[in-house]
């Protein structure tokens, strides 16, 4: 392996870092895209079961080829441009939606040392690029030259900015207790503690001492994803499909991919920040990628579950929850954690 790398380095010269990084990126993106495809299938199945239906079961054994069939269909559909749409921005919209959704995976640690870019300011990177995702929706909404799409864009920009604040504030407590902005360090910090030394590692993870922040982060994550019950951006019964109403074929599929890639990403972030990332819950089992995958799957199931359970929030209620409940709560909890850390009861030493 090393011999091949050295050869490639000589042959490609200054372009070697680019090619090598792109290769690693493909190793992350291909499994991600497959997971996205089967997440859509899994979502339809689970919601079907919860609502006493069967769900897709026609294409392939147990309906397993359904996402492939859906993808093929979208791929061969015509991309329709509205007559007075801003054509360039109409194409840039979906690209801007999916680009941050993929770029954010660069700093997620899959296991100890398995990370594309082990940057020091990983949390800041996540917050920064996470806030860029809203551009896809705004640009799409404006470029479509449609009232419904524009309403969706306006709603999403207000909602995303509001919930980013509570998300960031909730993360501040995580940073305080782990003392680092590096995601791998945050996971390592969760492996230390009284319970962890007694073999019950899952009680040392951040979710327990930072329980209110765990809740705030999880709910803000759902709001940030524009998913039910916070899906006023799409709001089928009010504004048809929001920013996506004029899109068809692959341009629509890109929004879809971005939404599901973001779902998996938020699940991975919750696992890393609060559920110990790749750490094993009990002392006698080895750590590894398997545990991260299990945690991501569990949180994804939670997202699907609440979609099947709750009705949509009204717009002003969303704003109220974000600004009048979550932001004050996080501010108070930052203070509480600060005092806790200074007191003799500090559990994070």
């Amino acid at each position: 392996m090393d011999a091949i790398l050295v050869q490639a380095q000589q042959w490609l010269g200054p372009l070697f870092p680019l090619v090598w990084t792109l290769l690693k990126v493909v190793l992350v993106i291909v499994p991600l895209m497959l997971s996205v495809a089967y997440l859509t299938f899994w979502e339809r199945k689970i919601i079907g079961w919860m609502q006493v239906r069967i769900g897709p079961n026609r294409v392939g054994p147990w309906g397993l080829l359904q996402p492939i069939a859906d993808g093929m269909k979208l791929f061969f559909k015509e991309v329709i441009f509205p007559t007075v749409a801003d054509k360039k921005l109409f194409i840039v919209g979906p690209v801007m939606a999916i680009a941050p959704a993929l770029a954010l995976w660069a700093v997620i640690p899959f296991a100890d040392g398995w990370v594309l870019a082990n940057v020091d300011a990983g949390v800041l990177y996540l917050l920064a690029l996470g806030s860029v995702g809203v551009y896809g929706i705004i640009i799409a909404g404006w470029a479509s030259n449609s009232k419904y799409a524009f309403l969706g864009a306006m709603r999403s920009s207000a909602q995303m900015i509001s919930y980013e604040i509570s998300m960031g504030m909730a993360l501040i407590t995580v940073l305080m207790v782990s003392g680092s902005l590096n995601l791998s360090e945050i996971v390592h910090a969760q492996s230390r503690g009284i319970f962890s030394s007694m073999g019950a590692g899952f009680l040392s993870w951040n979710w327990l001492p930072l329980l209110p922040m765990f809740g705030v982060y999880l709910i803000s994550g759902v709001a940030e994803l524009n998913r039910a019950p916070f899906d006023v951006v799409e709001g089928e019964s009010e504004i048809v499909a929001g920013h996506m109403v004029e899109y068809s074929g692959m341009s629509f599929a890109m929004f879809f991919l971005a939404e599901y890639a973001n779902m998996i990403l938020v699940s991975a972030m919750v696992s890393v920040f609060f559920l110990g990332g790749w750490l094993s819950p009990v002392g006698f089992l080895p750590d590894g990628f398997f545990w991260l995958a299990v945690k991501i799957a569990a949180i994804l199931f939670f997202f699907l579950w609440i979609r099947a359970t709750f009705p949509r929030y009204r717009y002003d209620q969303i704003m109220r929850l974000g600004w009048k409940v979550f932001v004050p709560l996080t501010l108070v909890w930052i203070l509480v954690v600060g005092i806790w850390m200074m007191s003799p009861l500090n559990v994070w030493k």
Partner: protein
Amino acid sequence: MEFKTILFYLFAVLTVFAAVRVITARNPVHAVLFLVLAFFNMSGLWLLLQAEFLAIALIMVYVGAVMVLFLFVVMMLDINIERMRQGFWSNLPLGALVGFLMVGEMAVVLTGRYFGLESFPAHEMPASYSNTKELARVLFTDYVYPFELASIILLVAIIAAVMLTLRHRKDTKGMTSSAQVAVRSRDRMRIVKMASATELPATTADQEGDKA
């Protein structure tokens, strides 16, 4: 040539291109989006200088929040592009003069000799150096009072901005969320206990009628 050098020229060219397009784009929404592109490339340049905190803060604050609100406002405006461009040629000479003066002054200041940049050592940092941590250390020790003062001034400004634009209209038909949340089911619905009534068995005549 190092890969970093290629990146530098890529970011630099894109920054200049985007900055020029900000002022030449006909559509204000396009201009704002080009400004976003310029911010992105500037942050790339800062990353090359290992100032990762500033680079990411630029994206987080400006691209993620300020420009979104800016775009929000610009998209709402109904701007007549033709009227905006009226008087372009008559204002051009003065504008160009001011522009060239500013570029000239910046060139004098920033080309290096003014600040004696040559006498400084090259910007080399050890791998363990964390820009974010160093900034925080300085901000919260040496400059803690100015820092807190600045944040209080910002807080006052935020509250003032909200209060200045807050108008309570008397004729709006809003709902009070706290009152809605406080509602309990027993306020709306009363469950009454009633004695159960036995239903009479259906007569044969009715059954006949059902069949018919």
